[in-house]
């Protein structure tokens, strides 16, 4: 499918390649460059051949681009179901189309572009993107995939041009392009609705425009210079707008700029005013411009997502008031808190949620066995509390009483509306944070004990003031123990429904975890006021959404006993990522790098460090070398050094990260290391050829070496697939006929096991309803792995008892009874094809009707 959508940006970025900056730089007046160029081409080509050379360069670039596009777009529509993280990013694209607010740990640009691509290609946002493996069916997904593949395809030409500019060598650039074109990992990662192709596109665009702009250094303030400089800034904003990994490329460009400015500053022929101009230009293009664009993406994000959605609870009350459909939007509620009000209490710390309780007790052995109190991110009637006086139990909503406002410093009681239990704390240790006290729901119908009394305080206010809804930051201090109500932010185990722990902390330090505000407020006796004053300003929303994103990123911690990917796994291609094929599909996609490419890259890094340090030491010792070698070592140290820095910046920080890491995080670094490989091998082979200059084959070495590397990478791409197959082998086989299927050993084995299980269940059955439930669940399980009801008619009588002789003695006499009972439950049928071995014959054994329940 043609990349019909969303490519506008990319095309405008590429057009300037036809500008004259790049090719001219080789002919620049800069002595250094000129010397290098001279070293490369000792015999200057004649004018005619130069024209031919230019043409061939263009042809090569076109070839590389074409090849890249061809590989990325080949069979793009397969598999026609959700693969891996498409379930997230596709869903977020739909959110943009539906304009519902959501929360994600990454900045919005990438998902916005996906949403835009979907919108332009006619996707209507109705697909649910529930879980990997769900079929797209009639929904249009090719627009989004095509957009990602389109951006992913540009990586190869970008890398080609970058290396060409850094090394001034066609063969190095070709080698890099080949590595990336034939790398299976890059290929796979570019084909799906993911953020990575978008991120890598911006990273490579930033790198390319930085390199281009560096080569314009001899003509400052010219048009191409400005163009590349501002393009760098735009790409940086793009990279950061997609994922925070973009910070690494910003760091690289920043270091490059500092070095550049340092050089200019030391150039005494430039006046301070000129240096100041340079500085201002960079500040404008590399700081102000990206920041403005980045903020703009957020502005668009907030503007587009104007409806309440699944992400509301992560944000503060003020933030939620912006979203239409949220109950705080255009809300009018009583302003001051009074006794008898029904309220929800929200923690001020990001993503902790509302104070919550439910009809479940803390389990045995965890503090006192009283009702659980937790915090919960979603809105729920269990979040409602009634605020009451500590000493009377009379109903304050009785119209005969006057309204009494709650004041700073009052002693109150909070009664859970649904269960009528009081918020309670005592000297028992909290379930997870052992040094804090447990908080429970206690008492019957609001009658408890003195441990239910809390002093309500407003932060930074005087005693006696009224408490304002939403705006007052309150603390609840337990009267008896003197501790402060807070949430530790830790997730409770299953018994607590994985909600967050609430504790009473004896440490009185003011942290956001122990400060709350009142969000909903219902009191029929008070007049409502409008809360439009609450609308936060744009900088406030921006700041808050960043805090929530950072919090969310930190929250992605790996659990113990889980296989997690470690950074050292990545460069050695230790383990890939399963994109698709967990379920019953036969279409399996596995993200794994091409081992030839990756191990060559690894070897190249080691070799580069070795050769680089040898050259550096030799230069430091003042060794004299011929101009040609000096030129080559300059390429190696400067060009290679820049790319190596990129690799390090995109790889090493992951070692410091505590969050869950995945294999695909390595791909930006992998792009850089492929560029390094290109530069290194080309330079080394040239050095080799130069060293053997007397030997007739000297030139051949370079050509032969490059060719063999190219062929090596290409060869393995196609040889690789059979090797990968065992990775995906599960116990499934596709059979040609039902008879084949029924007589296969896998099938017999499976039947035996199911029968044994059923038999065990039947012999030990205590009450029939539990057995029924059990069998139905067994049936459901079969269904999830793809057994179809119609399969049962296929195997009619196909499995006589003699085929499974070992079953006979194991079946107990009670089985027919049970099955008879079970046969009375009605079922519905649908007609689908059979996948073996999980089929079931209708008349197997004497349990003739049993299979019905297994489906």
């Amino acid at each position, binding site marked *: 499918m043609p990349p019909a959508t969303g490519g506008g940006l990319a095309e405008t970025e590429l057009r300037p390649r036809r500008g004259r900056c790049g090719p001219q730089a080789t002919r620049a007046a800069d002595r250094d460059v000129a010397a290098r160029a001279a070293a490369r081409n000792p015999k200057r080509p004649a004018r005619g051949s130069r024209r031919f050379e230019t043409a061939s360069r263009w042809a090569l670039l076109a070839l590389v681009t074409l090849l890249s596009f061809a590989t990325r777009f080949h069979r793009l529509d397969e598999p026609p179901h959700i693969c891996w993280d498409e379930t997230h990013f596709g869903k977020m694209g739909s959110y943009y189309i539906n304009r519902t607010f959501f929360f994600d740990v990454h900045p919005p640009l990438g998902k916005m572009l996906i949403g835009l691509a979907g919108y332009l290609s006619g996707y209507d946002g109705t697909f649910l993107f529930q879980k990997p493996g769900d079929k797209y069916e009639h929904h249009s997904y090719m627009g989004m995939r095509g957009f990602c593949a389109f951006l992913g395809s540009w990586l190869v030409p970008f890398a080609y041009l970058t290396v060409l500019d850094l090394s001034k060598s066609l063969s190095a650039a070709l080698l890099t392009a080949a590595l990336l074109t034939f790398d299976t990992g890059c290929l796979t990662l570019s084909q799906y609705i993911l953020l990575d192709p978008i991120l890598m596109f911006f990273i490579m665009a930033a790198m390319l425009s930085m390199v281009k702009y560096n080569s314009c250094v001899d003509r400052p303030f010219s048009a191409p210079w400005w163009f590349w400089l501002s393009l760098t800034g735009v790409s940086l904003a793009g990279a950061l707008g997609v994922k925070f990994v973009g910070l690494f490329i910003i760091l690289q460009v920043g270091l490059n700029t500092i070095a550049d400015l*340092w050089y200019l*500053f*030391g150039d*005494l022929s430039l006046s*301070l005013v000129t240096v100041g101009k340079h500085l201002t230009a960079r500040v404008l293009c590399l700081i102000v411009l990206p920041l403005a664009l980045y903020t703009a993406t957020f502005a668009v994000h907030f503007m587009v997502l104007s409806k309440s959605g699944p992400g509301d609870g992560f944000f503060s009350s003020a933030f939620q008031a912006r979203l239409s459909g949220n109950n705080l939007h255009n809300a009018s509620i009583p302003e001051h808190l009074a006794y008898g009000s029904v309220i929800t209490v929200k923690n001020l710390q990001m993503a902790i949620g509302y104070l919550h309780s439910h009809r479940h007790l803390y389990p045995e052995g965890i503090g006192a066995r009283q009702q659980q109190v937790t915090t919960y991110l979603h809105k729920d009637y269990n979040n409602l509390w009634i605020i009451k006086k500590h000493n009377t139990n009379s109903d304050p909503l009785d119209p005969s009483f006057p309204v009494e406002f709650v004041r700073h410093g009052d002693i109150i009681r909070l009664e859970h509306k649904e269960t009528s239990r009081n918020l309670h704390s005592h000297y028992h240790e909290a379930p997870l*944070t*052992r*040094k804090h006290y447990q908080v429970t729901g206690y008492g019957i119908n609001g009658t408890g004990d003195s441990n239910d009394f809390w002093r309500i305080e407003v932060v930074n206010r005087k005693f006696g003031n009224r408490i304002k809804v939403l705006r007052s930051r309150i603390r609840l201090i337990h009267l008896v123990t003197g501790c402060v109500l807070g949430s530790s932010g830790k997730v409770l185990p299953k018994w607590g429904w994985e909600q967050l722990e609430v504790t009473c902390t004896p*440490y009185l330090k003011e942290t956001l975890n122990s400060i709350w505000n009142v969000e909903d407020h219902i009191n029929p006796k008070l007049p409502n006021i409008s809360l439009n004053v609450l609308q936060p300003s744009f900088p406030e929303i921006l700041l808050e959404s960043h805090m929530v994103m950072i919090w969310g990123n930190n929250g992605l911690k790996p*659990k*113990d*006993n889980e*296989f997690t990917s470690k950074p050292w796994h990545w460069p050695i291609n*230790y*383990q890939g990522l399963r994109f698709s094929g967990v379920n019953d599909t036969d279409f399996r996609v596995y993200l794994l790098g091409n081992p030839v490419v990756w191990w060559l890259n690894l070897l190249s890094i080691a070799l580069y460090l070795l050769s680089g340090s040898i050259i550096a*030491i030799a230069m*430091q*010792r*003042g060794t004299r070398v011929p101009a040609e070698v000096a030129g080559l070592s300059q390429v190696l140290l400067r060009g290679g050094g820049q790319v190596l820095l990129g690799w390090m910046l995109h790889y090493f920080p992951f070692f*410091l990260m*505590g969050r869950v890491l995945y294999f695909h995080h390595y791909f930006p670094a992998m792009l850089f290391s492929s560029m390094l490989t290109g530069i290194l091998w080309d330079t080394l082979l040239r050095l080799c050829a130069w060293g053997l200059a007397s030997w007739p084959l000297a030139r051949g070495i370079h050509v032969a070496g490059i060719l063999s590397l190219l062929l090596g990478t290409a060869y393995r791409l196609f040889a690789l697939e059979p090797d990968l197959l065992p*990775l995906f082998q599960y*116990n499934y086989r596709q059979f040609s006929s039902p008879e084949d299927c029924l007589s296969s050993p896998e099938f017999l*084995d499976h039947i035996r*096991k199911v029968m044994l*299980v059923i038999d*065990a*269940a039947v012999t*030990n059955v205590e009450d029939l309803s*539990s057995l029924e*439930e*059990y069998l139905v*669940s*067994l049936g459901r*399980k079969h269904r999830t792995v793809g057994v179809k009801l119609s399969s049962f008619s296929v195997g009619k009588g196909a499995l006589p008892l003699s085929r499974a002789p*070992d079953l006979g003695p194991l079946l107990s006499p009670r089985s027919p009874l049970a099955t008879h009972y079970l046969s009375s439950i009605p079922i519905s049928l649908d007609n689908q094809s059979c996948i073996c071995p999980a089929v079931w014959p209708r008349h197997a054994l004497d349990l003739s009707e049993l299979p019905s329940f297994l489906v």
Partner: protein
Amino acid sequence: MWGFLKRPVVVTADINLHLVALTGMGLLSRLWQLTYPRAVVFDEVYYGQYISFYMKRIFFLDDSGPPFGHMVLALGGYLGGFDGNFLWNRIGAEYSSNVPVWSLRLLPALAGALSVPMAYQIVLELHFSHCAAVGAALLMLIENALITQSRLMLLESVLIFFNLLAVLSYLKFFNCQKQSPFSLSWWFWLTLTGVACSCAVGIKYMGVFTYMLMLVVAAVHAWHLIGDQTLSNVRVFCHLLARAVALLVIPAVLYLLFFYVHLILLFRSGPHDQIMSSAFQASLEGGLARITQGQPLEVAFGSQVTLRSVFGKPVPCWLHSHQNTYPMIYENGRGSSHQQQVTCYPFKDVNNWWIVKDPRRHQLVVSSPLRPVRHGDMVQLVHGMTARSLNTHDVAAPMSPHSQEVSCYIDYNISMPAQNLWRLEIVNRRSDTEVWKTILSEVRFVHVNTSSVLKLSGAHLPDWGFRQLEIVGEKLSRGYHESTVWNVEEHRYGTSQEQREREWELNSPVQVDASRNLSFMARFSELQWRMLVLRSDDSEHKYSSSPLEWVTLDTNIAYWLHPRTSAQIHLLGNIVIWVSGSLALAIYMLLFLWYLLRRRRNVHDLPQDAWLRWVLVGALCAGGWAVNYLPFFLMEKTLFLYHYLPALTFQILLLPVVLQHISDHLCRSQLQRSVFSALVVAWYSSACHVSNTLRPLTYGDKSLSPEELKALRWKDSWDILIRKH
């Protein structure tokens, strides 16, 4: 007569008197009333128990740092004749008479005292004036936080001592380099740098930061040396080699030596055994060694074994089964196979015994000759007490539904083709035909039918599983993880075929014959690895703080409170020194940037040698501060104010240097210089005054009234304890 009077002063006052006086004052401030308070103060409760372990030669594991620091403290106990009999259970407990408090606290106090003259010498070696040097030493002397930390049985003062020693000896070496390379003193100081670095690392991992700094500085100097074309290639190579040996090889060897001594000293089994592998435990006297001594080494068909999970998280446990079956239906409505449960059990139990059976033979006893099990062999594991074999199948496991359930099923002697074949994989094998060894081999069991691996999932089963740990079969393709690895702990050859006899045999204790030992490197690497990966719960502490609060001293730690009076000890710095230290650092950075930019434009404000000195002082002092402070922002563990003290010492070194620089280079006239000196004197006397005011909280020797205490609470965030009467 005047000349006579003058002469001795001229001869000796040069360095020695300064040094002697500073050392004397340092000793006085740190050693004065060292045994007071005669009670456990703050972290003494933590280090004290390790000293007791050393005295009793009991093995322990502490993840807070390498063992050298603990050994230094234990040395004090050893010199004082401590027998280790004291229960370190709470802060404030009175020491019993057998605890030699003075000698236990002596070594940290000495280290703290010697840091004072060392600061003096460092500034001198940086080629700044005596005045600045004395200033640096005097600041170290009156810094309350340093005094408090040195006078107790804690490690920071020792760490600071070695940090400073490393800097000092490198500077001495660097100064020798110019005059007499390869001389005796050159070698001495070079080696001492390496030794001091490795001691610093050996006390706390934090020492690595200073070590890295020294390596970087040495590398930069070496790089200049490479560029020096007056030296021959051979000579340059010799220089590089000497540095590599002294700064890389010697520290590594010393570090190993610390562990060697540590492991030699602690040869008895103790409370932390369970964390270590079976092989390690077996190398300790008592404990597992008592049980496993004399076990046969090679596991054969017919062996009876207990299998321990190598991963040991959340608790170390053994593969276990019992007669109870999985519930037919779980709470969430899923069904199970209703077969016999297989779990991981953290206690020794007769139900932990399994018999390795040859699938082709019927017997459960060893044959003669023995047929050892090798890598790749098929085995069946038969549960000793119930005689059912271990099995896994395509049924969802109870707690981790993505994995397969593991159960015990079918009595071993029923001849039915069941799914109970396992392929043995020895993970740490050297050859593909290696024999399965007790304790030493780490093995995986790969299920033949479903190619899944026996794994400890880490989840606890609910009540029906007696809260034991869940065992699952995990797909092999998910990759390698330690929780799939097991080793044989207890082992004997089975001899009884009858079930009844076998039960009796399993219940009887194991027989005993010879012992096995693990090599030092194996023990070292295991211990080091466990120390690095061990995660103690990140417990919140009342006095924990964040790095941002340290620079401005917004926090303190209450170390001790007298049981009756309100005498108390706090870790509380001299706020004048802390603030002016941070200020000096800022001034240094600004000046440095200013000079650097101007030099780039070819304006040389400082003469070349002054500039080089200025750079070197920045690299060592500002750099030392940065490397000892900034990494804390990346750490996720609980942090305390005392973590800042090493960084603070570097700031204190920088402070007089900056003052001297201002006086020398920025004060234009004599008048300005005099005014500046007067200001410095006034500032210093205010620091002395503050130090003196805070003295009761430093030494804890004087009980102040509540009003006085309130008056000392200069910052709201300071936590000073006031008794309510």
